């Protein structure tokens, strides 16, 4: 360990005005991206950057992150804002028109920085095939600087970016990737490995290699995205860019409009969320309710205190758990919503005396058994989507018919302990609503709630008849994202 005595350690570097302004602007951007930054944290960040060299970009970034971002879920949003906001600052991020690519030698091991090519771009002189070849080698070696060089050159050539053109980054990304044939390169990389080996690799070995190359390709793609972002910022300015790049936090991602990537982040978010919810709810149960005073035990205990009842003893509270019925529309547009809700409900099924689940489109099927004794709720949810018998005529939602089936088959199993949750957008394709069934159910059940994944302003427009049903329910809720779902369940239990 080294003990260091800086020249005047109590006085950190004084920051000039420009840096403070820069930080203030950055924090404004973070706030408008939805990150809650308090005044204390703002001040801490200002203090923190005095202690790190501004030239060290990573350290600078982590200093800001550790003072400003206190939820792991918010990290990605922070990173995006950071990249955009600081993308034009710092020497290595200058937009240079020549890409710092080495000449492509025929030898295997040219160094990435062999360049004595002064001035305008060696990269520009490459043929498309040579650029492709260079990418192949960069990926094979996992050579990050070379990957960055190729990414810059590729964006410059293929993205077709023109100043002032009002298209988003995804468009440019698509155009760039289309010209690069990454799948082809991946296959080539795997084949080359085979050539150098004596035996053909096992599936296991190939899987590992594929994962490794795939990771490098993902990194390369990130470089391309960064380059596009950099050029867009140069063109449009930071503020405008920050706005277009703003992505919702995972807990705010809309179930009905999630992209593939967002779906993945949702699936990741659901486990910790259910764990958190489960432990909070069981705590609530334990603390919220104390049973009646247990005289006998209190007196027995008081003996050790000379007959003074210092420590009152309570009986265990009688468990009073509701039984829950989940009835979910799993047709296309709302399937994801149903999946997450079922997942959540089963993850906290300990809070209920029993959970039964029913899914429908125009027909209806009970799927309770899919969830019994399974370890992986995800698997069960997956089976629901592929195996349940929910199509009656044409596979377009028909709430009226589905409710009819439910009522006939299961209606008399509803009792005063039953809580019912109905999930769906109530877009009924102009079929009959049969809302009298909901009224009958409400009369028998302990309570009944309707969860709709559509924004409230869309309710009862077009073929949505949620109002018809909601009038008989104890409540109808807009549940478009994990945050709202969690809040609902928290209240329910």
């Amino acid at each position, binding site marked *: 360990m080294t003990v260091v005595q800086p020249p005047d350690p109590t006085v*950190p570097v004084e920051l000039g005005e420009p840096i403070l302004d820069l930080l203030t602007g950055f924090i404004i951007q973070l706030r408008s991206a939805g990150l809650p930054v308090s005044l204390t944290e703002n001040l801490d960040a200002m203090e923190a950057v005095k202690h790190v060299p501004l030239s060290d970009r990573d350290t600078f970034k982590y200093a800001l992150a550790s003072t400003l971002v206190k939820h792991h879920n918010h990290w990605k949003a922070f990173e995006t804002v950071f990249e955009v906001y600081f993308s034009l600052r710092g020497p290595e991020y200058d937009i240079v028109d020549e890409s710092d690519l080495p000449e492509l030698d025929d030898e295997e091991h040219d160094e990435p920085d062999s360049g004595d090519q002064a001035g305008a771009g060696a990269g520009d002189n490459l043929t498309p095939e040579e650029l492709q070849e260079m990418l192949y080698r960069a990926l094979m070696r996992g050579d990050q600087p070379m990957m960055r060089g190729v990414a810059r050159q590729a964006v410059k050539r293929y993205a077709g970016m023109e100043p002032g053109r009002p298209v988003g980054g995804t468009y440019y990304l698509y155009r760039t990737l289309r010209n690069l044939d990454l799948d082809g390169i991946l296959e080539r990389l795997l084949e080359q490995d085979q050539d150098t080996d004596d035996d053909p690799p096992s599936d*296991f070995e190939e899987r590992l290699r594929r994962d*490794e190359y795939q990771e490098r390709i993902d990194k390369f793609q990130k470089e391309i995205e960064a380059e596009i972002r950099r050029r867009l910022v140069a063109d449009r300015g930071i503020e405008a860019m920050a706005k277009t790049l703003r992505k919702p936090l995972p807990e705010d991602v809309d179930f009905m409009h999630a992209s593939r990537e967002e779906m993945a982040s949702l699936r990741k978010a659901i486990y910790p969320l259910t764990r958190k919810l489960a432990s909070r709810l069981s705590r609530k149960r334990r603390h919220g309710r104390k049973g009646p005073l247990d005289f006998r035990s209190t007196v027995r205990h008081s003996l050790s205190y000379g007959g003074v009842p210092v420590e009152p003893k309570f009986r265990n509270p009688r468990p009073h758990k509701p039984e829950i019925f989940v009835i979910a529309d799993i047709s296309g547009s709302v399937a994801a919503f149903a999946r997450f809700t079922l997942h959540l409900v089963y993850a906290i099924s300990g809070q209920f005396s029993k959970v039964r689940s029913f899914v429908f489109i125009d027909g209806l099927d009970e799927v309770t058994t899919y969830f019994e004794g399974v370890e992986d709720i995800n698997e069960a949810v997956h089976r629901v989507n592929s195996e349940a018998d929910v199509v009656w005529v044409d596979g377009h939602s028909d709430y009226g018919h589905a409710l009819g089936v439910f009522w006939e088959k299961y209606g008399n199993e509803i009792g005063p302990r039953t809580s019912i949750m109905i999930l769906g957008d109530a877009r009924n394709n102009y079929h009959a609503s049969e809302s009298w069934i909901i009224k009958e159910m409400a009369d028998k059940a302990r309570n009944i709630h309707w969860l709709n994944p559509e924004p409230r302003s869309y309710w009862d427009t077009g073929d949505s008849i949620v109002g018809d049903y909601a009038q008989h329910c104890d409540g109808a809720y807009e549940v478009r994202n994990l945050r709202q779902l969690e809040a609902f369940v928290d209240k329910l239990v």
Partner: protein
Amino acid sequence: MSFNFADVAAVRDDLAKVDYLSDEAIAGVVFLAERLQKPILVEGPAGTGKTQLAKSVAEMTGSRLIRLQCYEGLDEAKALYEWNYKKQLLRIQTERADDHDWAEVSDDIFSDEFLLTRPLLEAISADDPVVLLIDEVDRVEVETEALLLEILSDYQVSIPELGTIVAKQIPLVFLTSNNTRELSEALKRRCLYLHIDYPDMEREKEIVLTKVPDITENLADQIARVVRSIRTIELKKAPSVSETIDWARTLMLLGVSQIDEKVATDTISVLLKYQSDIKKASKELSTADGLSA
């Protein structure tokens, strides 16, 4: 005032000397914590080195580690201080026999002599350098968090009968959380935040090399690669660093030098705890192009 580290790189190097392999983020936050004299809240999946970080920082700075292990029901008496009632009672009885002035007695029994210090107070009143580890803080109730706030922001403890005890020197404080519940904003505001995730392949390989005696670089490399692949699969619980280390030790015991599919699936239960995860991962690992891609 002197600091332990000149810069972030020095933190990394010194941590490596005590066998803790950090990265830019970890080293950066430890560096800042010392400069800003702020506690660090460390979150992240199980077994990724959160607790170890505090221990290693204590070791490398030559400080004493004081640990407060949190659990549901932890209270002031266990975390901060408690009066030694027995001793107080005894004293009262002797004094009564001697017919003393009550006010005097009362002053007397609420003095240092009758105070049982618990970890938080101990850390504050220490004369030697200490690192305070408040482990698994998410296990205490939200209301109990309030106990910590005074210490975390002012490095002091108020005891009604004694007054305020202020730290003689500011300890480095680590709080860890497995994120089983959201911590209060008040607590988070007082801390620097660090999320420790699973390490990347290079770092995990280094960890294996330092933690498992006599392991070859080649085997460590294979281990890190396989674990990295397994973590790309959607599982209930991904393998943690400690499980990687356990696996490496198992493979050493078995005398394995090359990991093939059979070795991997035969020993995978060291890495994965759930039966459904084991099934899924075994299946995936024997598929060349990955099902979950």
